[in-house]
């Protein structure tokens, strides 16, 4: 079970990690600045495994892969949103950060409520309220990338198998 942070629509990659930090690549270092402009106390209050619940178009803007890296570095366990900007969605999977598209999720959670989710089945449960929502299940090949910990570890493993 995980605790949720509820955010609105159009959370941009500038909100997730401002441009001036992109020279950093260490996830924990990036994680200290995640949502710094949006929720200044986020990085001090987030707990490992916490889930971001957001509205439409999460991760809009730049192609910076430092965005999912920063979320992971801060300990965020998954992002569940009404919809995602496509580059962020792909980058998140590639960094091994679970993302789920779930219609109605933003109005079904309040700050701090408990969530459970199943990526393969496409299920999101608000444990605090006892309600279950349908999400778009992730296809198998994206699940295998996530399970490997991201695209690069996934390709490394594939290359090992070939040798």
């Amino acid at each position, binding site marked *: 079970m995980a605790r949720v942070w509820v955010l609105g629509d*159009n959370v*941009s990659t*500038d*909100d997730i990690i*401002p*441009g*001036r930090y*992109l*020279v*950093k*690549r260490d996830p924990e270092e990036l994680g200290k600045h995640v949502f710094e*402009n*949006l929720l200044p106390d986020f990085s001090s209050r987030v707990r490992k495994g916490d889930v971001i619940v957001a509205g*439409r*178009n999460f991760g*809009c*803007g*730049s*192609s*910076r*892969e*430092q965005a999912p*890296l920063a979320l992971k570095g801060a300990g965020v366990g998954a992002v569940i949103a009404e*919809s995602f*900007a*496509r*580059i962020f969605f*792909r*980058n998140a999977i*590639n*960094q091994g950060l679970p993302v789920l598209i779930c219609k109605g999720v933003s109005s079904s959670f309040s700050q701090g409520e408990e969530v459970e989710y199943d990526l393969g089945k496409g299920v999101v449960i608000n444990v605090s309220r006892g309600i279950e929502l349908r999400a778009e299940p992730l*296809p198998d090949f994206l699940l295998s990338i996530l399970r490997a910990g*991201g*695209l*690069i570890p996934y*390709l*490394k493993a594939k*290359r090992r198998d070939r040798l």
Partner: protein
Amino acid sequence: MNLAEKILAGKAGRERVEPGEILEFEVDVVMMNDLTGPLAIESFREIAEKVWDPSRVVMVLDHQMPANSIEIARDHAMMRNFAREQGIENLFAEGVCHQVLAEKGFALPGLLILGADSHTCTQGAFGCFATGIGSSDLAAAMAEGKLWLRVPESVKIVLRGRLGRRVYPKDVILYLVGEIGADGATYRALEFHGEVVREMSVGGRMTLCNMGVEMGAKTALVPPDAKTLRYVRGRARFPFRVVRPDQEAEYAEEREYSLEGLEPMVACPPRVDRVRPVREVEGKEIDQAFLGSCTNGRTEDLLEAARILKGRKIHPRVRMLVVPSSRETYLEAARLGILEKLLKAGAILGPPGCGACMGSYIGVLAPGEVCVSSSNRNFRGRMGSPEAEIYLASPATVAASALTGRLTDPRDV
């Protein structure tokens, strides 16, 4: 097939492709910049030793070039070392990646271009399929010369009419972002048609395609015509085949807009789709005016600003920062006397590149400050303080506002 499908079918070695299909595609060009490249290189080293084809890898130092911190200097050095080691000759440090890619002849009809920068869709102006990816995907594409993509649905956008005086491609795309919304084209390809596009310069088409991603689009394309071919002639790095959409092509949606009477537009903070005519917000005091970026830093953009500022002085409260998008632009603007007019009016010139667009280089905003910018994003904190405000507008509106110190319709000066 429409243009996106036709290009992708060729790159998948298939007769045809359907929207929604996930396939592996042969890549023609991969591009990285100085904020996405270092992460891609580190990832690349974990999965491969040599890039699949050094002549098709383009590296551009543009976001913080010349370096303004030890960290970015270290990253530039790392990228230069990687280029040397891999035999990559196409490392450029002379302008915004999207402008440089076009000028150096990498943006060609029918190609598949993957760039680790969200505004890679700019290249669609040349009738290629160009889309933004992250650093891991870039590493994978560099290693294999291939990447999986989902074939997008396409939207045909027909732009009718004639643009009025001091109304530009930027006003058109701001208007469209306002109409379609910041996520109104998510995952889709936008294919532009109509006499407004036909009349547009190649640079104007780049402005149009550049902001496709501000509607969530995967790419934006203009079918190639004589203007496209004139631009790429003498620049093209590779042989290419002109691909045009079929007459009977199918689209997920067709939208027609009449742009007769369109006014100068502005996107109000902090959303790209909060778009209104300049008239409705005019009078708002500004502190900084930024003319530049991959959206609007070309010679024709600087020229419009110079026409307005020639022989006049910008408002004493305003600092106006002009950043030509490339060395070629810089030289051309210098030769035409544009830079002199802008400097005499009181503008500050920055080195070619991304300039003030993303808050990590020059022209950073203080809390409470207001900036009118010819760039493409006005998100909270984009150009510095999260308490600063950014209004996106055409180069003419930026110049007119710099002159009066307030958001100003360029038809009034």
